[in-house]
């Protein structure tokens, strides 16, 4: 009788390979930025402290293995492959066990797919791969034990004939596999949102501001504070804050920086915000805080940021420390190589920490950004951040004074001023006509304001707000 090509082992390999491809596709196409983020959130080092630290905590060996594997997630292609492989391993092991224990394992091979669902159910939120790797280790041990025992004693167990129907087996396999894939792919507990956040983080880290603005719609920004923060940062970095701040839902100074959120995503955003604005002490502060959120109290993304910030500050000792530490991981060789000349360049240089006779503190956003405006009166970005936050907080008086202060250097006589400022000044001038004295307000803005005021005064408030949406006037009403 001709032997079927699909022996039990071949069938198992085929199922495992197929599942691997499916899982890989889901991870790669649905969660690629999340995979990159996982690498940044993790940390691995060959230094002795790291291993001893891991073995003293609950995550232990599985967590240590997970941390090692996470290093490779900076390439999402590889990250997706590792995630998929870790998922498939228990199924493969169980399949081998069934093949060794049963005389007719092809009738029961579908059972090997069942554990997948238990793994994929929580795999997304398994930040340290603790549960996934534990399941892998357990299944590998079971498989080895079975292979060892059955090398001496081969059981003659047999699955009843009626269960040997190929269609029944295929159906059960497909159902079990589908459930496990569904657990990964379904949008549960904000998995998709998490992927969106991590995509924004990725775009932000790569200074792809236009892509952020393409990703975050004004509607999204109005309802989601992290998306709003990224959109506002992108506007600020693109010089568009004074045009679109209210369109993207700016509501107050707290929209620029998170003050009471300790999630790594928010802390990383804060660090990025301060980095973009050259506030190095605040960058270091946020980077430390972000690292502390990781299981070992330090993460790749925080260490990379600290190293780069200290290089920027020409603080050789600390920059070198962090570069050295990162050189003891598996995937930072190129990163370190790139920084070695930078390190060499600051080796005998005095660190450049900005002096501040007023000792400005990192308290609320307005305080911090005011200090930056004070030190950098000609810096348009700082001025826009401060002025827009004052407008959002309805601080017309302060806005007027600070605008006058920066306008002397940023908007000399005759220079057009941004639309939002024109709108604000016109509105303030209804109470304080002197506020627009000497300032050139465009005819278009005056005309629009007259139209807005006309509609409001004639009781057509809704129409006015709709027609002049995204203006400071609409916001202030």
């Amino acid at each position, binding site marked *: 009788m001709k032997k079927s090509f699909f022996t039990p082992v071949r069938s198992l390999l085929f199922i495992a390979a197929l599942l691997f491809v499916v899982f890989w596709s889901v991870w790669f196409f649905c969660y690629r930025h999340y995979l990159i983020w996982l690498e940044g959130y993790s940390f691995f080092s060959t230094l002795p*402290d790291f291993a001893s630290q891991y073995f003293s905590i609950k995550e232990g060996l599985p967590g240590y293995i997970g941390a090692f594997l996470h290093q490779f997630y900076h390439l999402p292609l590889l990250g997706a492959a590792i995630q998929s492989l870790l998922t498939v391993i228990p199924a493969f092991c169980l399949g081998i066990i069934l093949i060794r224990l049963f005389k007719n394992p092809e009738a029961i091979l579908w059972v090997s797919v069942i554990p997948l669902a238990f793994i994929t159910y929580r795999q997304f939120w398994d930040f340290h791969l603790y549960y996934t790797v534990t399941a892998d280790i357990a299944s590998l041990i079971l498989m080895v034990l079975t292979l060892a025992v059955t090398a001496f004693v081969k059981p003659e167990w047999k699955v009843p004939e009626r269960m040997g129907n190929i269609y029944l087996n295929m159906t059960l396999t497909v159902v079990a596999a589908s459930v496990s894939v569904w657990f990964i792919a379904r949008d549960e507990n904000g998995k998709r949102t998490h992927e969106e956040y991590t995509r924004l983080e990725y775009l932000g880290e790569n200074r792809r501001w236009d892509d952020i603005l393409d990703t975050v719609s004004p509607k999204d920004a109005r309802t989601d504070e992290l998306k709003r923060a990224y959109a506002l940062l992108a506007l600020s970095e693109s010089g568009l804050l004074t045009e679109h701040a209210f369109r993207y839902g700016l509501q107050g100074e707290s929209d620029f920086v998170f003050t009471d959120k300790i999630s790594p995503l928010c802390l990383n955003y804060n660090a990025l915000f301060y980095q973009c604005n050259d506030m190095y002490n605040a960058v270091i502060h946020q980077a430390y*805080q972000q690292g502390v959120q990781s299981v070992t109290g*330090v993460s790749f993304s925080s260490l990379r940021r600290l190293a780069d910030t200290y290089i920027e500050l020409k603080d050789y000792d600390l920059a070198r420390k962090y570069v050295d530490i990162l050189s003891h991981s598996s995937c930072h060789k190129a990163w370190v190589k790139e920084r070695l000349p930078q390190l060499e360049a600051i080796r005998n240089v005095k660190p450049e920490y900005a002096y501040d006779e007023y000792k400005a503190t*990192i308290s609320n956003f307005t305080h911090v950004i005011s200090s930056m405006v004070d030190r950098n009166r000609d810096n348009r970005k700082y001025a826009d951040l401060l002025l827009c936050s004052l407008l959002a907080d309805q601080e017309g008086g302060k806005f007027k004074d600070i605008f006058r202060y920066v306008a002397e250097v940023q908007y000399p006589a005759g220079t057009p001023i941004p639309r939002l400022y024109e709108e604000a000044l016109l509105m303030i001038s209804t109470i304080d006509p002197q506020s627009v004295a000497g300032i050139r307000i465009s005819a278009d803005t005056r005309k629009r304001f007259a139209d807005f005021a006309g509609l409001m005064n004639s009781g057509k408030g809704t129409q006015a707000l709709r027609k002049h949406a995204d203006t400071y006037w609409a916001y202030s009403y």
Partner: protein
Amino acid sequence: MTKYMQLYNRDTISKCLIVLSIIILSGCSSWKSASISADCRPVIFPDYAEVTVPTNIAPLNFMVEEAGHIQASFSHEGNELLKVTGEEGVIQIPLKKWRSLLAQAAGGNIDVYVSVWNEEHPQGVAYLPFPIHVEETEIDPWIAYRLIEPGYRSWRQIGLFQRNLSSFEESAIVTNATDNETCLNCHHFPAYSSQSMMFHARGANGGTILYHDGKLSKIKFNEIGPKKNTTYPAWHPDGRLIAFSSNTTRQTFYLHGEKPLEVYDYASDLLVYDTETGEVITDPRFMTEETLETFPAWSPDGKYLYYVAADAKNLPDQVEEMHYHLMRVPFDASTNSFGQTDTLYNAHVQGGSASYPRISADGRHLLYTWSEYGTFPVWHPEADLRMIDLKTMEHVDVSCLNDPEEADSYHSWSSEGRWIVFGSRRLDGRYTRLYIAYLDEDGNPDKPFLLPQEDPRYNLWRLKSYNVPEFIDGEVDLPDSVVKLFEQEK
């Protein structure tokens, strides 16, 4: 064919034996001669040149940066006693041989001859020797300290650790590994005893953990006596009383400048806890809002309580006007009462601010940390150790202990009073590392040396700061159940 095979085999075996002998011999003596002699000493890390060490210290492993092969020979009175080779520029001295070396050199010098092979000197360069002085006095065998990420508001893993000074053995006394939330701090021991210990556990299930007379207990100071939380401790030499300061501490973070933050107390008072009766002893003079008292420390005879005190100011605006004086007050342990206060160092007159007064075992010297202002010198780059001779009330020059650019702060005396251990940020300005120094009976210090590590680079790579180093007479072994006293439910 068989004959040929035999010949072939004999020849092959002979060749193999020759090659093997060469390999073994070359392996045994990788000692080489450097082709050039430099007329200077090597730049080694840590800088162990001309330091004074006790006879029971762990090997002073060191490295030369950017070196490949490295050799060090250790001589005493002209006799070469030990040779060590290393790669990557690192010298790691075998423990047993090092101990034997120290025993032979006790009371004298070890001269260390270093040769290095690097890109600049591929044929090797031999440097002038540097001496290490071996003092006959031993040092307490263990130190306890806290390891913590250096900064800001949050933490992850905090642990109180202990290190055997004669080897590289380090172990945890207690950590927050079970919940990663509780903050452990201010550990202290009575008269260097490893048999008793106290520390604070901050968190939802926190309190002051006391291990005394073989019993574990948790004291909630906010529920007894004046209902004030306690901070910096000082265990009375008789073991019955513990003096505490009670501090309301806050932090301010700076946007610019090298100093990233300032820590200050809104309020601080002194109180004494009786471990036998459970009573809290207070003195109204040390419980006022107008004056802030902190950092208590007993004299070795237990007859004086030393502390620092400052006038309350409007904080944080006036933080730079916070200047702490050095004070002491007589204490009668039989009546639990204090006498008249005495100012040893008047910060208004002499400038600066004093922290961490610590008295030597013979009661003669008071070591403290000086900074320009405030009460948290570890974040003050200008912070230095200073010392007062309590016989003459004059300052003793201890400038060789200090780094001119980075903070030198917390310090402790050894039990026989000839050694100190102190924290310094001189390596990188942020991570506190431990330095040990010898002081003669007049208080003249020798050059301090960095706590030896198995791999000297470990001092650079460790991502935790050392905090509150204290000498102890042995290894602390707290019952495992100690964690149950403070761990928070998840």
